[in-house]
């Protein structure tokens, strides 16, 4: 028994030769792995459901690697023309690329092939969705603050790469729907000034669609992008270990400690088990729900297209941005075509992405706070940040909805034009409204917290006092519950002060006004004097 050897005194341990002990000794003498176990075996991880979002992303990526490897054994990344002769009758005898042919064979002629295709596709969708939710969690709790800014950047690059993986993978079967997606990419690229025509020409190896792009995407999809993603995930996790995980404020939790359970055994069981749960749920989805039925679309042909054409959901925001451009944004100047109907969406989306990428640095500049932050903010306790996030989400959601503008129009029996005009409005004005509402809600929640911390909950119990007075009894919180409401950071707007040369620089002026915008409306945390006073009531 290995547990016996571990608890036994040292001299005896050397004498006893259990198999586990012998193997451990053999490995340790060649790797000094015992130091790793000593360092990390009892490392503490804090507990919260929202910390699982990143785990879901990690585990679904593992599932993607497993199912994807299976698919590569059967898939032919070639655009050579073949005649389909598989089991799916409606397409029999049709000319198609070897890629489409092999994707159909995986679906209809290989046992478990369709299951693996669907596992792969569902896992990919879950991967991107969980990264997105994980990023929202990081943002709204302020987990990107020092010292984690660089890890935010790494995570952000992973999100972009995940979308790249998604798009290249989606294109591989060379079916009608993905072919139209490629056609749109071709059109987008051609609209880029100066280099667009040539980039498209080189990407497709000649004129669209050519016979090269599937093979090239395949290399990106199974070699280049996954290699970068694996490396960045490793780096991402190294930083999690270096920084130690953040935790929510609560009794006994400070900026200088981590409260939770050790990796061995509790987290090994919970996180390890959670991998199997994620895998199991993906398997369930793949067993029950069809995804990407390429056999209904048929092989790619530049001429036909079906109504309601849409990309996979994570590309939707980009497709929606294209749809929202008003007519006529294209000009010929100096014999050259300026396609602002393409340049503007590209620049706006690029700008949005850069804003998300740089936000941690922006906030650090506004607060001037150089301390490390390991205690998370509850979103309400950082009202302006939360409101900016709400504005960003509204912007993204409007673009996303626009990718379904035709479906919205037919389902709700609206005119196409009205749907577009409404979404143009929500894209531009919506973020401002969302900002205002979110900020007010945050401040109202903070006021409520303050009220509850000082006076407790309304119990609904009305008591008549001897003097005839009626009062409602308030249920006081215990000190542990109360502390969750009290523990947050507070900032004051920056005051403009002259620098050493006696001048007020314009950078300082800007910073002061942004700081005012951030922190003008704020709720102060409860002081012990106030608490004491309220307890005498």
């Amino acid at each position, binding site marked *: 028994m290995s547990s016996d050897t571990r608890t036994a005194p040292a001299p005896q341990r050397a004498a006893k030769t259990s198999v586990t002990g012998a193997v451990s000794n053999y490995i340790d003498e060649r790797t000094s792995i015992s130091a790793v176990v000593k360092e990390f075996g*009892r490392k503490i991880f804090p507990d919260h459901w929202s910390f699982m979002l990143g785990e879901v992303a990690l585990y679904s990526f593992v599932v993607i690697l497993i199912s994807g490897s299976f698919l590569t054994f059967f898939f032919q990344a070639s655009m050579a023309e073949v005649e389909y002769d598989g*089991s799916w009758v409606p397409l029999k005898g049709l000319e198609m690329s070897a890629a489409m042919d092999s994707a159909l064979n995986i679906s209809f*002629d290989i*046992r478990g092939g369709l*299951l693996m295709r669907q596992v792969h596709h569902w896992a990919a969708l879950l991967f991107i969705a969980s990264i997105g939710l994980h990023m929202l969690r990081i943002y709204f709790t302020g987990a990107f603050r020092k*010292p984690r800014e660089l890890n935010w950047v790494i995570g952000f690059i992973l999100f972009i790469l995940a979308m790249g993986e998604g798009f290249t993978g989606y294109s591989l079967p060379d079916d009608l729907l993905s072919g139209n997606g490629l056609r*749109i990419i*071709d*059109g987008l690229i*051609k609209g880029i000034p100066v*280099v*667009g*025509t040539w980039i498209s*020409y080189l990407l497709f190896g000649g004129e*669209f*669609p050519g016979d090269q792009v599937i093979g090239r995407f395949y290399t990106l999809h199974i070699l280049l992008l996954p290699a970068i993603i694996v490396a960045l995930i490793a780096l991402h996790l190294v930083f999690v270990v270096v920084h130690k995980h953040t935790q929510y404020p609560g009794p*006994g939790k400070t*900026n*200088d*400690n981590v*409260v939770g*359970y050790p990796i061995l055994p*509790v987290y090994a*069981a*919970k996180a390890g*088990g*959670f991998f199997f*749960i994620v895998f*199991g749920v993906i398997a*369930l989805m793949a*067993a029950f729900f069809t995804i990407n039925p390429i056999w209904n679309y048929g092989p*790619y*042909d*530049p*001429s*036909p297209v079906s*109504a309601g054409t849409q990309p996979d959901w994570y590309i939707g925001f980009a*497709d929606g941005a*294209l*749809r*929202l451009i008003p007519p006529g944004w294209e000009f*010929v100047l*100096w014999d050259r*075509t300026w*396609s602002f*109907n393409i340049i503007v969406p590209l620049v706006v989306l690029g700008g949005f992405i850069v804003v998300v990428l740089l936000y941690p640095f922006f906030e650090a500049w506004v607060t001037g*706070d*150089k*301390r*490390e932050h390991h205690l998370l903010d509850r979103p309400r306790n950082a009202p302006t940040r939360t409101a900016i996030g709400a504005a960003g989400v509204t912007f993204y959601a409007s673009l996303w909805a626009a990718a379904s503008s*035709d479906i919205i129009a037919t389902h709700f029996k609206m005119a*196409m034009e009205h749907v577009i005009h409404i979404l143009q409005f929500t894209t531009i004005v919506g973020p401002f409204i969302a900002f205002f509402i979110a900020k007010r809600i945050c401040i109202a929640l903070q006021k409520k917290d303050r009220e509850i911390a000082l006076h407790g909950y309304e119990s609904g119990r009305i008591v008549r006092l001897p003097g005839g007075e009626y009062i409602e009894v308030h249920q006081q919180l215990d000190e542990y519950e109360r*502390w969750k409401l009290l523990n947050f950071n*507070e*900032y*004051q707007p920056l005051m403009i002060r002259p620098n050493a040369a006696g001048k007020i620089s314009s950078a300082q002026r800007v910073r002061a006004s942004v700081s005012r915008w951030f922190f003008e409306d704020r*709720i102060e945390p409860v*002081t012990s*004097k106030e*608490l004491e006073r309220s307890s005498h009531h």
Partner: protein
Amino acid sequence: MANEEGGTGLVPADASVSHGRDVSAGTAVVQRDLAQNPGLPPHRPRTTDLDPKADKRSERGVSLLFYLSIVGSIGAIVSYFALPIVPDDPASVRLNTLFIGLSIALALLSIGIGAVHWGKALMADHEGIDIRHPTRGTDATRERAVEIFREADQESGFNRRKLLRNSLFGAFIAFPLPAIFLFRDLAPADNDPAELLRHTMWEEGVRLTRDPEGTPIKASDVTLGSAFHVIPEGLNETEHKLEEKAKAAVLLMRLKPEDLNVSPGREDWNYQGIVAYSKICTHVGCPVALYEQQTHHLLCPCHQSQFDIKNEAEVIFGPAKRPLPQLPITIDADGYLVARRDFTEPVGPSFWERGEYEQ
């Protein structure tokens, strides 16, 4: 919140809430007499800690789940053989997928739920505390790091031997350049892409044929209100079929001649109200495949650009700017529709050099 004490209860936050000594807290402030952290709440035992029966029950439950997982794994293998895929029977594919998937899911979920339950209900649940240390290295470590770089610089002469260093930088800048040029042959070397985009398969006398069969169309076949998806005759036999089709696909419709607003110079481009327009959207190139018979509008299903056929396919809504190019048509001696010539402008999405071809 007004401060009831008078004066200010706020003081600038110092580094005490964080690690490090001389770290600026920026505009952060703290209340002078902030409420105090009460410390960890007392540990609450679980039912499995108190009741040996509950403990045993959980143990049995978890092991039952692990046995169930074995059942699932074996079930998946059984399903693989018991539910083969029968050629030409899609239902067999569905059964195969469903039962292999369900069995695998059972195997995985049982392990997962069992392990998590073991962790939550049976493993010791005393919370541990790790102490954080500043992320930055200690002053001694940092000094030593700087020292090492300085020694390395001295021993190598990296900053002292400027000529050596700068020539190395130059070499580093130059060495990746060949890689960029190696990518030129991603596409054939002897073509100009803008020139290729200018021409399609259409030329004088090429018959309009049905997509995809390639059968020619008589003018009399095109009745009022009908629309034909059209490819040039001989397209199916060409070597680069899809590339040609991506440029040459055409939509053919018949309107009443009086409904057509024909601009000067295009009078003979339609044949008795039969008009042919490029099917490739001028926005980003999707096929503009949806024809609305009553209004004679064409709708692109990708980004909802709408084109008015009565007014030479001008854009009436959506992100596209240019009208769909019109293919001049007439009939040949046998009464079949033929092209008069190629399109007079490049079809499909805009590109940078396109302006050169605008008249």
